Every structure is written in C-alpha cells, then in structure tokens.
C-alpha cells in the first residue's frame, strides 16, 4: 500500500517511526475488536479457519457472518430478494411450459413448420413458421437500418459534437427511448404509413429486382408492410444501441486518441484506428440488446402490420406478422387452447430473447475481462 498508513485498515504492526510520537501499537491476539470491518484492498493472512478469502474481493467492503440479529435479518432479506429474481425467471419458464403443453398436445399440425393459426378450430391447428419468419425479418431489417445510424450518433455525441452541448444532445436521443411503444405504434400506423408508401413505390421501381424490396404485384399496394414495421422498430431500438455505444466510445482512453492525432491522423482516422476497435465489442453487444428488444416488441408492430399468416419475402406488400404482435392480436378471441397456443409461442419468444441477451452479456463480460487485463 502506497497510501498513508491507516491503522484501522492495516493489521501488520506499524514500523517504528511511522507516526512520530505515537507508541508502537501491540497487535492483540485473536480477532480484532472492530471484528468484521476489513477493507477489500487488504489481504488477510489466511488462518485456514477464518473467512480470509472472502475479504479479498476487489473494491468493496465485505464481511463474514455477523452475529447481530439486525445484521442477520438484513442479510437474509437481501439474499432472499436476490434469490427471488432467480425464482421469478425460473417460474416464468416453468409456468409458460406448463400452460403451453395441453395446447401443444392438442395441436394437429407441426408447431414449428405450420404457417397458419387456427387454435380455436376442431381439430386445433397452429404453427409459428410464419410468425417466426416475420419476427426475424422485421428485427434484422430494423437492426440493418438502426445500427449504422446509431453508431454515427454515438460517435457524434462522443467525438464530434462540441463538448458543451454533447450531454444535452445525448439527452435528446435518450428521450426517443422514453416515448411509449403504443405512441410509436399510433404514429407509425397513422402518419408514417402514408409516407412510406411513396418510398416503397420508389424502392420497388429501382430495387424491385432484390425481391425483398418489392411488392407482390410490382406496383403496390404498399404500406402496413414488414418494411414499415422494421422502420418503426429501428426508431425504437436506435436510442438503445446509441446509448450503449456512446458509453463505450466515451471510455476509449484519451491516450489512444491523442496518440493517433499526434501521428497526424485526421479525425476519421483517429476514430477508425483508436475508437472503433476499442468500442467494437460494446457495439456488437449493444446490437444484440437492440435485437432482443426488437424481437420482443409487441404493440407497435401489432398496430402497424396488417396481420397475415404466410411467409412472404415481398417486404413492401401489406402483411406479415410477428410472434409478439400475434399474441396481442389473437388474445381477445382465444379460448383455452387458443391461450395455450399463444403461451407456447410466447415461450419460443422467451427462449429466443434469452439466448440473444445471454450472448450480448457474454460479449460484454468478455470485453470487461479483456480491458481489465490490459489496463
């Protein structure tokens, strides 16, 4: 420890003369009177029976088991609440599976490859093929639209905007995330739908050969399409991706940036060689989190799409559906099997978003380890 000596933290006997005029303190045998108060930066000599290893965590105060009633109670409530988080996540999986099984058993069609949704019929037939297709298509299209702009915005706020206004501009972008999804749905359904028709006609005319940027007939009708849903989703996930990317870009060591500039790099070369490589894992995980949000978004998509149950690669034509939107649309008319079928589709959504989120966290965690080792 290079910091000034602190007798409450340091247990080794003070070398003579550390505190002029203060007699050298004799360390008493056994546990110290301040009992469990130990700084994390200190290493307790492991006695084999004491909780020495518990004290060696970085950066905070930790302690062993206290005998005080209040402490035990408090600790118990904290641990209980923490365990409650795990219980909820487990309960979500258990109850969704439990309530989905009867409907899945009654299902006469293949749940994964059937495109239609007739859970209320006799026999009930439903499958998530078309829904899963629409979910993935809208989300990926949204990511393709949103991520480049979000990275641009993050760079703008972290490296380009004047420092005086950067924080305020960042707040404006955060406000985008605060707008409730039902408002985006209303806006997309009533306003953006009219405007995307012209754009769709333009895209169909010049890029129709790509199939995905065309309509069924080649001349319309347009609107209430997968493209519209993707644009609305892109607007909704953009602030999320931008906020996380911005945080990562702000963490780029100033040394790296100044080194690049000192070598004569232009601002873009500095960004390309210092900021982007450092921030890449953060941007990737931000993208994954945005993808998770887009996959699970319900109301905005339910409002802007005119629901159909076919796999259609013509993204400019009205139609398409997603797992989440279908749940919102079908719920009111669902009987017992219908509800079970919707819960089954929700279970699929839960699993997909779980995988995407875990992947994103894994990338972040790996980066933490990496940068921790480097610094």
């Amino acid at each position: 420890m290079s910091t000034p000596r602190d007798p409450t933290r340091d247990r080794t006997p003070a070398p003579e003369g550390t505190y002029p005029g203060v007699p050298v303190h004799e360390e008493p045998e056994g546990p110290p009177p301040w009992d469990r108060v130990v700084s994390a930066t200190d290493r307790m000599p492991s006695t084999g029976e004491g909780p020495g290893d518990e004290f060696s965590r970085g950066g905070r105060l930790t302690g062993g088991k206290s005998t005080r009633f209040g402490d035990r109670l408090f600790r118990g409530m904290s641990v209980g609440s923490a365990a409650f988080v795990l219980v909820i996540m487990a309960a979500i999986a258990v109850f969704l599976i439990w309530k989905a099984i009867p409907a899945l058993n009654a299902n006469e069609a293949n749940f994964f490859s059937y495109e239609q949704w007739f859970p209320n019929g006799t026999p009930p037939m439903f499958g998530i093929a078309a829904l899963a297709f629409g979910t993935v298509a809208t989300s990926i299209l949204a990511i393709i639209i949103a991520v480049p702009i979000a990275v641009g915005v993050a760079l703008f706020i972290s490296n380009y905007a004047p420092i005086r206004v950067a924080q305020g501009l960042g707040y404006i972008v955060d406000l985008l995330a605060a707008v409730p999804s039902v408002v985006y749905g209303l806006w997309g359904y009533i306003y953006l739908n009219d405007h995307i028709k012209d754009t769709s006609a333009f895209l169909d005319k010049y890029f129709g050969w790509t199939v995905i940027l065309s309509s069924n007939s080649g001349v319309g009708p347009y609107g209430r399409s997968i493209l519209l849903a993707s644009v609305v989703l892109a607007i909704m996930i953009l602030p999320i991706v931008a906020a996380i990317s911005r945080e990562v870009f702000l963490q780029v060591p100033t040394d790296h940036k100044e080194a690049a500039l000192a070598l004569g790099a232009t601002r873009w070369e500095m960004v390309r060689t210092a900021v982007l490589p450092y921030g890449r894992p953060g941007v990737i995980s931000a993208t994954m989190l945005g993808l998770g949000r887009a996959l699970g978004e319900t109301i905005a998509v339910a409002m802007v799409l005119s629901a159909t149950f076919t796999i259609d690669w013509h993204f400019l034509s009205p139609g398409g559906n997603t797992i989440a939107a279908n749940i919102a649309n079908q719920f009111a008319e669902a009987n017992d099997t219908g509800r079970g079928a919707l819960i089954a589709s929700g279970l699929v959504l839960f699993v997909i978003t779980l995988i995407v989120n875990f992947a994103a966290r894994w990338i972040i965690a790996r980066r933490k380890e990496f940068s921790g080792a480097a610094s």
Partner: protein
Amino acid sequence: MSTATALPPPSTLVGRKLPRWTPAALVAGALAIAGVLAVLGPADSIEGFVLWTGSLFLIGQTVASFAVEGGRHARDRLVTSLIYTSFVITVIPLVSVLILTIKNGMARFDSSFFSSSLRNIAATNAGGGAYHALVGTIEQVLIATAFAVPVGIFVAIYLVEFGTGGFARTVSTFVDVMTGLPSIVAGLFILSFWILALGQGYSGFAGALALAILMLPIVVRSTEEMLRLVPDALREASYALGVPRWKTIVRIVIPTALPGIVTGVMLGVARVAGETAPVLLVTFGTNSINTDPFSGPQSSLPLFVYQQAGLPNQVAIDRAWTGALTLILFVMLLNLAARLVTYFWRARMGR
C-alpha cells in the same frame, strides 16, 4: 478552386486546405441545383429537395476536398458530414412524433377527457374520456412500484454490500437478462401463473404484477449503480464508530445514494406506465370506471390508446391521440424530473 490551386502554399510543412468559406459555398450551390431540379421535376417534394441538396453537397465537398486536400482529408470530411447527418436523422422521428401528437392530441385535450369514462359511448360517438384509464394506470403503477422498489433495493444492497462469488454473479446476470425480457412474456407469465394456474380473475392487480416484473430490473440496476458510488470511506467511518452493518446501510449508505435511487425509480415508473402488452393480457380492459384494482377488469392509459386507435372512426382516433399526448406528457415529465434530481444532486455533491 482554381484560384486556390494557383496560389503557392504558404509553407511546405502544412498541407493545402480548402478555404473556410467552401462549405457555405457548396451548400449554396447544392441548394441552387436542387431548386432547378425541383422546378424541372425530379425533386418536387420536400423530402426529395432535402435529399438532393444533401447528396449534391456531399459529392461536391468530397470532390473539392479530394482535388485540393487529397484523399485522406476528403474521406475525413465525408465521414464528418455523414455523422452529423445521422444525428439529424435520429432527431427527425422524435420531432415528428412530438409535433403530431401535440397537434392531433389537442383536439380532445379538454376537461371532459379527464373527467369522464367511455361507458355507454360507442366508437362513433364523440365525447367520452379516459378517466377510467387514468385511474387504472395510476393504481397499477403504484402497486407495481410498491412491489418492485423494496425488492429491487434489497437486491441491489445484496449485490453491492453482501454479494460475492458465484451466486452474486448469477443474480447479476439474471437481472441483466430480466432487463431484456419482452413485456409480452411478462404478461403471459402472469396470465399463466396468476389467472390460469391460481384461478384469479382479470384485474388491475394482475396488471400491476406484470408491471412489477418489468420494473424490478430497472430499479435494481440504477440502485446498484448509485450504491457503488457511495465512497467506502463513509462505510469505514461508520463501522469504526461501532455502528452495526445494517444500520450503516440504512442510515449512511442509502441516504447518501437516495437521490440516485429516486431517479432510478422515476425512470422505472416512466417505463412501465407506457407498457401496453402485459396490461392487455391480464387486466382485459373495460370502458367503465373501476376503482378497485383487485377485482374486475380495469383499463389503463396505453391500453386505452391501443383500443381507440384500432377503431375506424375519427372521433375514436382523436381520443387515441389525446391519450397518447397525456401519456407522453406524463413520461416526459417523469424523465425531466429524474434528470433534475440527478442534476441538483450532482451539484450538491460537487460543492
């Protein structure tokens, strides 16, 4: 440009640069050409005009810079322009949503909207209001807050003050994963757990449970962040005075972090107040006033907007816009208040 190239560079150590007035001149040129195009046809809409102007400016700047300053600076200028553009593109939807919601929402932003329900008012009828939905939203959000905040704060205390080892890491990971939980899945969970498995009816309380699940990770994350900012010296000083651990947390750590925790709770409330999907599944919605959250269907403001927007009548859509305006005002005010709390707290801490 030709004059610039004709002049000898002032120093051999400094590369040639475009004069300061170049961007302004290029904008003027691009505007002029786009104006001609607007008259001739290709750029006759506002969007087309802006798009043409922007593209012409980008091309002109890149070409000019390439000719005078060289490829590296041309690329730098191009990227800078694109990055500024991306910010403008981001702000456009926000401005558009706000302007349209205010414009369309003002039509019904009157006292009867906040004092009457939709009981006996058909989709084709004018009038009616969102009183029932407001009552529902307020009750559901309050109950959700009452559940999520204490649990969330205790989870955060565990993670910061007690948690070590694998269990804490697992909890931390699952809090993160919970943040990404789709709201509709939270609704489906309460549906299958509370309504189908336990046999309870559709109620505002069920909606509040779903909202609490969505709010919990937000409260945990923000509280955790704030508790970590509390300096260890404060804890050590308290322990040194012989204060028990729990009392140190209650009397020293939490009061120090309180403004930050309040901010987090406000942001959490703002987030769940706008959630439609879970409420749609478990409160069922109604057009009548139901002040009892524990029995019978209840409406909520986002649900009101969703249901009114789905009706094919202009009066219903007007109601939806006003509902959306109310919702945005509520959420924005909460966000603003949260920012102000943080701001004044920071200012106080800085002194």
